[in-house]
């Protein structure tokens, strides 16, 4: 006998809770659960030391190649796209540092989720009394935190030793503000990236082979995020368009916050754009997730 998993789940809109004490307790235990998931994910990625070193090495090598091409271009056209040479070089090395945390090339929980959809293990996940989106997001944030500390810091250090890079500057208050806004912007960017990868993986419910969609997502992620080139260098129509799409939040906006190109009003509007996309994508993710769950057919045995 087969039946849809959606029938087996509790009805989605929960009735208002008459006891606020119990509600608080539930919230506490939920946040404990998500923290545990994130920490587990952090530790899992931390296990593969050789892979981490190899990946960091590769990021650093690519950083050198791209930095040389940027230098060649910016020596001919100083202040191209509003960046001077050292800002452009910082853009390269920070980009290498952000590549893995924001998973601009895909991967992270996307790999695990795709594998579970293809193998059918996802059915077990859907029975668990936990919100799927929240569970996978927590897991991806744990991964991102590990990648930021391992594969983010070292390329930036090597780049800083070999090239003249620009760190946030100004008074103490300004530096603290820039660093905290950068980290907030990065957190929003990782969440946007997660939502896109999450929905890409969920298309596996319909397409069975998620590789094609994955490739499309990879191309969009590399190109529209500003990872390959700052978006201001694109032909002006495309530049304006790409700067408003969700992918800009993955690399371009955090970079500009770090380089203090976004301050005051434009800093706020950048963060607001990221936040708006997070909300839209979380909502869209919920809809896709519900449709996907309704599609699951469990082979009883």
């Amino acid at each position, binding site marked *: 006998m087969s039946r849809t998993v959606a029938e087996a789940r509790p009805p989605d809109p929960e009735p208002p809770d008459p006891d606020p004490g119990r509600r608080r307790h539930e919230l506490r235990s939920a946040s404990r659960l998500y923290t545990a998931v994130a920490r587990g994910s952090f530790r899992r990625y931390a296990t*593969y*030391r*050789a*892979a981490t*070193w*190899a*990946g960091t*090495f*590769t990021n650093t*090598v*690519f950083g*050198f*190649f*791209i930095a*040389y*091409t940027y*230098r*060649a*271009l910016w020596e*001919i*056209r100083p202040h*191209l796209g509003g960046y001077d040479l050292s800002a452009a070089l910082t853009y390269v090395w920070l980009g290498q540092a952000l590549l893995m945390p924001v998973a601009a090339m895909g991967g992270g929980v996307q790999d695990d989720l795709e594998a579970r959809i293809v193998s059918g293990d996802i059915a077990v996940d859907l029975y668990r009394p936990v919100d799927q989106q929240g569970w996978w997001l927590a897991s991806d944030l744990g991964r991102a935190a590990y990648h930021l500390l391992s594969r983010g810091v070292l390329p930036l250090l090597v780049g800083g030793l070999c090239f003249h890079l620009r760190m946030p500057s100004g008074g103490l208050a300004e530096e603290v503000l820039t660093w905290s806004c950068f980290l907030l912007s990065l957190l929003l960017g990782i969440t946007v990236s997660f939502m896109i990868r999450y929905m890409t993986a969920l298309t596996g419910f319909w397409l069975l*082979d998620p*590789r*094609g969609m994955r*490739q*499309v997502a*990879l*191309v969009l992620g*590399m*190109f529209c995020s500003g990872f*390959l*080139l700052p978006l201001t*260098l*694109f*032909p002006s129509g495309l530049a304006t368009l790409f700067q408003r799409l969700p992918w800009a939040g993955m690399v371009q906006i955090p970079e500009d916050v770090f380089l203090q190109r976004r301050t005051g009003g434009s800093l706020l509007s950048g963060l607001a754009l990221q936040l708006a996309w997070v909300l839209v994508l979380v909502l869209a993710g919920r809809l896709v997730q519900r449709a996907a769950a309704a599609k699951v057919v469990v082979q009883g045995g």
Partner: protein
Amino acid sequence: MWLRASMAYRTSFWITAVGNAVTSALDFVVIAIMFLHTTALGGWTLPQVAFLYGTSGLTLGLADLLVGSLDQLGQRVRDGSVDVVLVRPAAALAQLGADRFALRRAGRVVQSGLILGWALSRLPIDWTAGRLLVLLVLVVCGTVIFGSVFVAGAAFQFFATDAAEVQNSVTYGGATMLQYPPTIYARDLVRGVVFGVPLAFVNWLPALYVLGLPDTLGLPGWFRFASPLVALAFATAAGLLWRAALRSYRSTGS
């Protein structure tokens, strides 16, 4: 066998082949956007850089098509499935190269070939028999050199099963470097790819002859024609390394 397997899902095959081509074309889009803002990079024009891009992608793509499956070796050592290969009465290298042979990787070859064709149509090359020969030799020897990097990297993976990504920095990273003129890089880096991992012989040095450009690197003139020698030496070294790695391999027993 793998050819038939991949053709079983025809739509998926074409999507991934086209997807691969588009993904590798992104590098050229970056170059094209850079040339929106300048007429020359490191003293080279867009068609000249496109020549480097096309030859770099074509040779890497061909090598990847032939022996690219080898970069999964670390995975196979970890799960023990490499043992199955070793007990079969056929050369391990040939088996592993043919394993999961993926025609979809031809996407990069086709796309790079198109860019190379465009570059050749735009370049005012005075075609002599010598130039044509050097171009053909470039494609063959470049493929051998990149193929040797794959083999040497796979040999390395017998010892460092987790370190597949280091190999990427030489293969894909090297190909990225060769897409740009040698003049933009620091002298030490150029020396590294001439005398260290000899990637400069894939396309930089032969390109100087084909495009009739002066050598700003200060290398002996005959280096432009030395690609076959280098390819032979590198292939031999990679082969010896592979045999040594195979001989010292101890199964995990799983």
